């Protein structure tokens, strides 16, 4: 049985095509534009093309992510069910790491902490409130301020050995502190590290609300940033596992849920 999970995030749409809860046949990713349905459809088609499958061979589609309503019961994707991100995250992470108890998902706009129970069910969760500099877009803004590509931020941070405390309660305040550091001729490496530390602090703070229990997994787009993991592990004082393709875990969870629902 082939199911699909579609995670329509704030910035990217991610698709996972799954066979019998075992084989990931394809995954695909693409930017979400103004027309969410159109963007998601394009990415969905990309996934299908990678496997030469047709839409009617996909038995069930479940959508998650900020833009999930846009593809709920809307052709051609026709997602039959929509689930909140935390549910999909828990399911996906549990499938990849059966010992996982805490999942941290940091995407473009949102950070989430999820406590996972039996069978990948959600026990408790926390999502960042409005005032938070703990998401991918923050990193992009900071990269612009430093005039580097966002993919360079992590490697830069890893080169630094200096810790500069920075307030990350609010994105705007953080940016003004970065400007101050730039003007005081602090190196890009040290500034990048400060930004990563501040962001990790923000996320850690949020996760501490629900508590940290091992095993801890980090997923979402920001998990791909090598500079983010070390300060996060330090703040939470625990080892954190990053599964392969962390950005697709939500979509995987949705695909697994599609299978469960179809089985019922």
């Amino acid at each position: 049985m082939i199911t699909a999970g579609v995670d329509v995030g704030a910035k990217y749409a991610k698709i996972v095509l799954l066979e019998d809860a075992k084989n990931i046949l394809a995954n695909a990713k693409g930017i979400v534009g103004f027309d969410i349905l159109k963007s998601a459809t394009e990415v969905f088609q990309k996934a299908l093309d990678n496997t030469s499958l047709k839409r009617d061979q996909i038995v069930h589609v479940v959508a998650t992510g900020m833009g999930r309503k846009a593809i709920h019961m809307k052709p051609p994707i026709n997602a039959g069910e929509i689930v909140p991100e935390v549910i999909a995250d828990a399911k996906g992470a549990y499938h990849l790491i059966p010992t996982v108890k805490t999942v941290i998902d940091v995407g473009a706009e949102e950070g989430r902490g999820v406590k996972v129970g039996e069978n990948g069910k959600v026990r408790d969760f926390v999502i960042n409130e409005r005032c938070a500099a703990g998401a991918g877009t923050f990193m992009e803004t900071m990269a612009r301020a430093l005039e580097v590509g966002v993919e360079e931020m992590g490697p830069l941070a890893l080169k630094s050995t200096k810790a500069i405390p920075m307030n990350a309660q609010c994105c705007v305040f953080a940016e003004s502190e970065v400007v101050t550091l730039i003007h005081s001729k602090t190196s890009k490496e040290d500034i990048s590290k400060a930004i990563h530390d501040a962001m990790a602090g923000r996320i850690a703070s949020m996760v501490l609300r629900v508590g940290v229990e091992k095993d801890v997994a980090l997923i979402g787009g920001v998990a791909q940033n090598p500079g983010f993991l070390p300060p996060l592990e330090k703040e939470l004082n625990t080892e954190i596992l990053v599964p392969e393709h962390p950005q697709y875990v939500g979509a995987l969870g949705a695909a697994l849920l599609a299978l469960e629902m179809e089985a019922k």
Partner: protein
Amino acid sequence: MVETIKKFPTEQLKCWNEAKNLRKSYYENYLNAHEKGGVRWAGGAWSFSSIPAGLGEDVYSLTGEPYGATIAFFKDFTAKCHEATEAAGFPRTLCAYMRNYWGSILLDKYILADGKVIDEHPAPDFIWQDHICCSHGKWYQVARWLEEKKGKKVPMYCVDVSVGYPMDKPLEEYKINYIFQQLNDGVEWLEKVTGREYDDKLLCEAVWNEINATRLWADICTLNQAVPAPLDEKSMYSLYVMGTIMKHRPECVAFYEKLKAEVEDRVRRGIAAVANERFRVITDTQPPWGFLRIFREMEKYGVVSLGSLYTYGLIGMWKYRPDGTWATKDLPPRKPQTREEALRMIVEWTVDRPEWAHFYLPEAKTKMMLSIVKQWKVDAVLLHYNRGCEGLSVHIAENRHGLVEAGVPVFPFEGNMGDEREFDLLGTLARLTTFFESMGLKKLRE
């Protein structure tokens, strides 16, 4: 979670209009107080309002928090109040009720219960306040300062009640005495500033009314232990408010007696507040007043909010029974006969106020919330991390901690009771519905 979707019968509350009218006339009476030679005062909802009642039958009040909440209902006016307050140099992180109230003075406007805004903010003849949170006394200190700029000198008296909470044992005599002495001095002060002779009989009446009104409200809240719940929290706000504006008045007692009888009848006949009640929650701290539709959104999931320690214990008086049940506080043995008896009685009555416990002991509030969870058969707790009120949000993280340790599902959400800019309705609804879904509840209807 077993998904049996029952459908309970529902009915509008019969005394709903009376509640509306009582509140409407309250704001009008304050405005028109001088027309018939009456006296009007301003102060907090927790001010010992039974004391100024001794000045006569024509004494009217404007309590600050309910007025601040009224302003918050009407977002256009709220925005103007905020603008005015911020332009005057006050930080926007201050208590939201207080900023709304000052805004009203700065704009020189007065808003009525139905949202009608009239010119000229009616200055009080005196301020009678109590102080427990950092802002209480200062709120009216600034209000007085603002009135002075408009040429009006308003005398102010503020009673300090920060003596602690009788959690496991009664408060020491010297603490009761401390508050009693301030009230006693206060009576003399009232005579001085109004030039009126104080009537101890009126005081005794007012104190006895307050004790009865607060007991009746607790009784009414207790009825919500029934399944299905006869009342939902959103409706309760329009009913408990009477206790915040006139708990010492005979009309309040009469209204609560009527309401109690009606709710008892609803319980007998199994009338529900929410037709498809299948998940019971309580909330905490004031709600985001400008966005009460979140309660209606909850109902689409079959979720009913039964109330909160805030709705029950802000006005209602409760005490732990020897068997560990949390119940209506017992009536004192008899009505007070003298000034001293009345003052002492109202102090001893008031220090048990449940909503005063957490100012000192977070564990006391957690205990009471857990009692509500148990006795009212509550499935989850929604905590409003209220940026607009540090007084009621103090120690809220500890309460969350305590509830989670006890195995109660908790959903915290940030917001502001009185500043609409700080409440993200869509974001909160998205998170709230995620919470319900994680509890296994799917939406029942649009």
